[in-house]
Structure formats: structure tokens, C-alpha cells
């Protein structure tokens, strides 16, 4: 590893808090530098180079909504300048903190990111119109499998098992839920089959990593290939020739929650969705509380950070790990079910198309926490949907570069260019009791 300090264990100071570092310790200026660069970029591209005299229009209501809001119309260039100035102020504050040998707090980076994104939107929609509600609604739908996938990653890796097989869990879940829902004619049976499929893949992961101590990354990579192979094989053998009986599950209809669903903008986005989306809210909450507020979570984290210490106090390390891998598989399987029962309505060969790896990225970007993973997954879903929306209304940026954004962001994150991410200390290391 690059720095010796990276090999030090969990005691490393929490980086995001705005606390003064020890006297004499070098203070990283990466954050203020990158914030300044992004602010400068915003001022130049979204302000100086933006077309003048035109405006950006955002529709705030969907056509069917009861309360129709007037669309938000902003002068493109002036808004670009204003937001650019705001970004510059935030970057300057970050410099101020760095000069006082203090870290930039997380909220500042988040606010900065949000403002930057909005400035980008105003610029991209210059002289055009876009439905903000539609954009957010589509983003959430694209984010659902990512959220389940990244939560699965969090559950695994907090216990010290690297999960590269999220893609496999998702694909298996998508496959089995579609098949079971088709054969039984019951969507709920399909929704149960999704996590079962994820569980089956997770059992293999647990068997090889926890029982046989095989390299976790290898097992994950190979399991992905296995699931692609099995589902692709059965798809060609059964789902294509017998599509009516094997591959026509249908989809869950959206359920509108009374009152909440009528809130402008937020209502249709968050509270007029299918049951899997509501399940997602529940799972995120449960995983967060379970990991950080319960004895179970404390044990899991102990196993992920320092298995030998956990063992000493009587925690059965490999049992905890195996259990978490299985739970994680089931969680990801629900995300897989969303592909077929939540959106498309039929299984397609390799239909997860790398979403499992974006979920992995989201987990890393979210610093191995459920809420962070949720935020990152929503952000990546937003980027994905923005890309497709912009390619329809016409955009100054080729859509391929927008598609790259989540992956590049993750590389920046692990390279420490935008804050530092740290994995659980024992992540990826088999625990062999001596």
C-alpha cells in the first residue's frame, strides 16, 4: 500500500468531522483544492461560457397531478454565475478551515455537490425544458436495485467478507423472481423467490470464503460468471421458447400513499411507487439501526474490524460472517426482483448489465454505511437517469461521458481526491482460528 499509515487499524481518526488535527500533523489540502477546481469549472462553463439571454425551464408537476405548479424558469447564465459564486464561497470556506488546520466537514462537501449538480442542470437545460419530477422519479427507479445491492455489500463487508458477487445476487434474483412469478402467476411468490435466489448464491459465497477460506475476491468474480452462465443457459433453454409460461411475470402496480402522495414534487417521486420501493425504505432503515444501534450490529462490526478481538470475547467470527453473507444475499435478491417485477416485467439475458458493480461503487462511495450507500446509490441513479433524459432533449455532453461519471467518481473517492474512504479493517481477510 502507498502509505504505511493505511495499514494502521481502526483507531485512525474519523476524517469527516471538523476537528483540529494533532499539532504537527500534515493537513491534507486535497479537499479545498478539488473544491476550488470544481468551483472554477462551474463559474467558467456554467457562467462565462453559458449561452446568454436564454432561460432554463423545470416543470414541477406531472401531467396527471391534482395540484399543478407553475414551471420554474431561471435565466441560464445569471443562475450559472450566482451558483458559481456560491460554490466559490464554499470552496473559500474550505480553504479557511484548511489554513486553520481543520478538516472540511462532510455537510460542506455534500452541499457543494448538490449546488454543483443544480448548476450543471441549469446549464444543460439552457433554452430547453425538463420535468424535474419526472427526472427524480426515474432516478429513484434506477436507484432501487443499486440501493439493495449496496446494502448487501455493506452487510457483507462490515462483517469482513468482500462481496464482488453483488452482480450475481442481483441477476439470480431477477431470474428466479421472474420465473417463479410466471409459473405461479403470483407476483408475491416471485417477490419471495428473488431473495431466495440471492440466498442461494450467498450460500456458495459463504461456503467457499468462510468455510474453505478461498480468496473472497476470486469467489465473487467467479460466482458472477457462474450466475451469468446458469441464467443465460436457462434463459436460452426455457425462457425464450416457452416465454408465455416461463417469462411473463408482469409488474407490481404503483400504490399511492394517501396525503403523502399528494405533496408536490416529492409526493409522486417517493410515495407513489411499487411495493418494492416501500420495502427499500424499510430495509435501509432496518439495516442502519441493526448495524449501529443494536448488539448484533456491534458484533458484526467487531468481526469486520478485528476478528481476533471479537473471538476473544466469545463471538463466533465465522458464524457471524456466514450469517451476514446470507442476509446480504437475500437483500440483494430483492433488488434483483425489482429488475423483473418492478420495472421491466420480463427477464432478459444479463439484464443487470453491471448494476451490481455500480452498487459496489455506491457502497464504497458511501463509506461502507447504509445511509451513505443509499445517498450514493441515489446519486448514481440520478446520474444514470439524467444521462438518458439529456440524450433525449439534446445535451452538450456525449451521453457516454455521463455514463462514466459514477465510475470515475468512485476512482476519485478511493484515490482520496474527494475525502478518504476506509474499508473495515479485516475486510477480505479470512479468519482462521489458530
Amino acid at each position, binding site marked *: 500500500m502507498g502509505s504505511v499509515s493505511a495499514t494502521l487499524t481502526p483507531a485512525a481518526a474519523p476524517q469527516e468531522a471538523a476537528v483540529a488535527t494533532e499539532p504537527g500533523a500534515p493537513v491534507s489540502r486535497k479537499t479545498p483544492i478539488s473544491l476550488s477546481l470544481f468551483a472554477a469549472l462551474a463559474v467558467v462553463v456554467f457562467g462565462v461560457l453559458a449561452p446568454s439571454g436564454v432561460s432554463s425551464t423545470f416543470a414541477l408537476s406531472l401531467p396527471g397531478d391534482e395540484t399543478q405548479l407553475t414551471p420554474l424558469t431561471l435565466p441560464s447564465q445569471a443562475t450559472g454565475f450566482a451558483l458559481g459564486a456560491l460554490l466559490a464561497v464554499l470552496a473559500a470556506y474550505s480553504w479557511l478551515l484548511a489554513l486553520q488546520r481543520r478538516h472540511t466537514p462532510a455537510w460542506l462537501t455534500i452541499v457543494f455537490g448538490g449546488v454543483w449538480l443544480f448548476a450543471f442542470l441549469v446549464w444543460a437545460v439552457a433554452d430547453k425544458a425538463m420535468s424535474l419530477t419526472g427526472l427524480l422519479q426515474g432516478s429513484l427507479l434506477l436507484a432501487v436495485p443499486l440501493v439493495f445491492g449496496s446494502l448487501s455489500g455493506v452487510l457483507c463487508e462490515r462483517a469482513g467478507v468482500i462481496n464482488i458477487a453483488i452482480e450475481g445476487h442481483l441477476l439470480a434474483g431477477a431470474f428466479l423472481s421472474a420465473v417463479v412469478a410466471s409459473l405461479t402467476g403470483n407476483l408475491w411468490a416471485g417477490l419471495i423467490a428473488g431473495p431466495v435466489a440471492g440466498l442461494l448464491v450467498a450460500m456458495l459465497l459463504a461456503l467457499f470464503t468462510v468455510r474453505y477460506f478461498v480468496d473472497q475476491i476470486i469467489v465473487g468474480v467467479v460466482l458472477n*460468471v457462474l450466475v451469468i452462465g446458469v441464467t443465460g443457459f436457462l434463459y436460452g433453454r426455457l425462457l425464450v421458447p416457452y416465454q408465455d409460461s416461463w417469462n411473463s411475470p408482469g409488474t407490481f402496480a404503483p400504490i399511492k400513499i394517501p396525503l403523502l402522495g399528494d405533496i408536490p414534487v416529492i409526493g409522486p417521486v417517493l410515495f407513489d411507487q411499487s411495493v418494492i420501493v416501500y420495502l427499500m425504505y424499510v430495509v435501509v432503515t432496518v439495516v442502519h439501526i441493526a448495524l449501529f444501534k443494536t448488539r448484533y450490529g456491534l458484533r458484526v462490526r467487531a468481526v469486520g474490524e478485528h476478528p481476533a478481538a471479537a473471538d476473544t470475547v466469545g463471538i463466533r467470527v465465522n458464524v457471524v460472517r456466514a450469517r451476514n453473507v446470507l442476509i446480504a444475499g437475500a437483500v440483494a435478491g430483492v433488488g434483483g426482483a425489482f429488475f423483473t417485477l418492478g420495472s421491466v416485467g420480463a427477464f432478459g439475458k444479463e439484464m443487470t448489465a453491471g448494476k451490481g458493480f455500480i452498487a459496489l461503487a455506491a457502497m464504497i462511495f458511501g463509506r461502507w454505511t447504509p445511509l451513505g450507500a443509499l445517498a450514493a446509490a441515489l446519486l448514481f441513479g440520478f446520474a444514470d437517469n439524467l444521462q438518458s433524459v439529456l440524450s433525449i432533449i439534446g445535451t452538450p455532453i456525449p451521453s457516454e461521458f455521463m455514463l462514466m461519471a459514477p465510475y470515475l467518481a468512485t476512482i476519485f473517492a478511493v484515490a482520496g481526491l474527494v475525502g478518504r474512504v476506509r474499508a473495515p479493517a479485516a475486510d477480505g481477510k479470512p479468519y482462521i482460528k489458530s
Partner: protein
Amino acid sequence: MSTSVTEQASPSAPGPEVRRTRSPLLDTALVTFLSFVLALAIGAVLIAVSDPDVAEAAGYFFAQPVDTLTAAWDSVWGAYVALFQGAVFDGSASTVQGSIRPLTESLTVAAPLIVAGLAVALPFKAGLFNIGAEGQIILGAIGAAYLGFTFSLPWGVHLLVAVLGALLLGGLWGSIVGLLKARTGAHEVIVTIMLNYVARFLLAYLLTTTAFQRPGRNDPISPTVDQNAQYPLLLGGWSRLHLGFVVALVAAAFVWWLLNRSVLGFQLRAVGANPSAARTAGIKVERSYVLVMMIAGGLAGLAGSFQVLGTEKALSGGVSAGIGFDAITVALLGRGSPTGTVLAGILFGGLRAGGVTMQARTGTPIDIVLVVQSLIVLFVAAPPLVRAIFRIRSAGSVDTLQVSKGWGA
């Protein structure tokens, strides 16, 4: 954790009285063979249970149980015979060339698998897990194709220039990983996974630009590469086998020499065994990371050149064809050694080539090949499991595959 393919002490080591009847090498070969058998057996079950004829016969299983078994046997036997005929020898062909063409096709398909496998196997030795062969192949293919169809150079020179382009771009893409690891400590597995996607979208973008897209076409495909830039065919027009296969063997020999006979190779292995000790001994660990990933990227880039200058003859969105991911299984089955990688590459090349024939002749989807491949590697990675299934005793050590470290440290 250990950082190279290491032998871990067995938790259930046999007592001293156990006779050592097999050498560790023979034991490895046995486990590999049994893994292959197991994988084919599971594949057979999958083929049989998903066959509609078998299902139909199973409908009256208790009346005529033999029918079910016959149908299952026919289904599996037909598929595997077609697989063999497509991979090795086709006795049904009328000419000699026709009957051995499957073998040459297997070798053709094996060439990129071998070099890409080396691109994964070499960094193993330095303690790095390169999942990024896919992206490096794409970059290599971009370099080879661009130089191949844009310019018009004399015979010999053009091929050389195009291949150098592939080496260079692939090496560059690989060295990004090494640099980030050396400078910032970013874990290579994460970075390579992400760079695979970046490369894929970069390729998709390039194929929409005028510099790369074939004139008059709307789909993502480049012009055909110049005749002079293509790898010459080895056996004439009846087989696709091209010079690339020889290049792949030379590359394997080079990697063997690099690892076992050069100073750099010694340093790489030292870094792989224990980076801290290597640093103490005066080896520049960071430099090793960059170099090994650069060489690996170059090797994967070479695989890209086989694709565009050898078999495909043009750059398309699917030019990498999943070779970068198969390469991981190739390197794992080959246990990270150059010789093993060549053998594993030929085996998987045969499975790929045979799978095409199998799908065409029996309608068995080629995806079964992926199942067999991944199962072989899973079993090979866990010898204790294979031994438990076949009830054979260990030859002394449990050689569970451990190549990578955790994310964090």
C-alpha cells in the same frame, strides 16, 4: 493476509504416518482433473433437467423410468459430443482439414485468452489482482484498430506499428492502476473494475466519432483494418489460426523469463510475498506496482490486437467479448504460472470454440460453457472440497487460493 498464491497449513494435517504417495504437483493435477470432471457433471445435470424431452419423459417417470434416463443421456451425450467435435476433432467432416479445423479454431480463440490470462497472472505474483484486463483489452484494441485502419504502411511495418499501439495504450491504461495504487493506496480491484466501465464507454463514444466510425454506417463499428496490419494466417485460408497464437506463446515465455530469470521479476515476487520486507530490502515497491501493471496492461492490449488484427478485423462495441473476465478464470486455473496459463487458455479456448458448435448443432445454449468454466475454477480454488467429495486424502498441504489482500490494508 498472504499476498501470493500460497500454501496454507492444513487445519486437519494428516499425521506423520501417512505415506506420501503423490507429489504435490501430481496432487494439483489430480485436483484440477477432478474439478473438471465435477464441473462437467454439474453441467450435465443442468443440460438434462432443462431439456423439454427429459421433462416430458419424467412426466411418466414411474411408469417408464428408463425413458427419462435415456432422454437425459441423449441430451447430455449429444451436447458434449458436439462440444468435443467443435473443440478438438470432428470425425464427421469429409476432409482432413475439416476434421482438424476445430482444433485450430480452439487455438485461435485461445490466443487472446492466454495473453489476457498472463495479464492477470503476472500481477498475482506481485500481490495485485488485475480485474481490469477487459478495459485494457479495449484500449489495446482501440490503439491497434486506429493505427490499422487510419494509415497505410508497408507489409510487416504496419502490423508492428499497430501492435505497438495496442501495447502502448493497454500499458498506459494498466499503469493508471499501478500509479493510483502507488501514489494514493487506492485498491487495484476497485480501480480496475471502474476502469473497465470507463473503457467501455470510451469505446462506445469513440465509435460515434468520425475518426472511428465506418463511413456510411450508423452502428458502432470501425472501418476494416488494412490488409498489411492484419496478423498473417498460419495455415492458409481454411483456418482462422493466425500469427497471434505464436505471439501469445512468446509472450508466455517472456513472462516466464521475466518472473524467473530477471531482476525485475525477483523484485516483483519479493513485493508480492511481503511488501514491507521488500521495501526494507531496498526494493522500490511503488515502482514495482506501476511497472507490473504497465506490463500487464500491455499484455492485455496484445489480446485486443489479436481481436482486431486477427479475428474480427474491425473495432466494434463488443470487441473485448468478455475475454478480460475469462482471463481471470484462465489465470486462476493456471494457478498464476505462465505454463499453467497457456494450458488453461487452450482449455478454455476449446470450450469457447466447442460451445459455438454445440449451440449450432444441438441447440444447447453456449452459456453452459460459462457454467463449466466457473465451476472448474471454484473447485480448483478449494481443493479440500474436491477431496471431500471424492474422499481422497491430501498430499500434505492445503493449497487454498489466496491472492489478494483486503480493501483496507
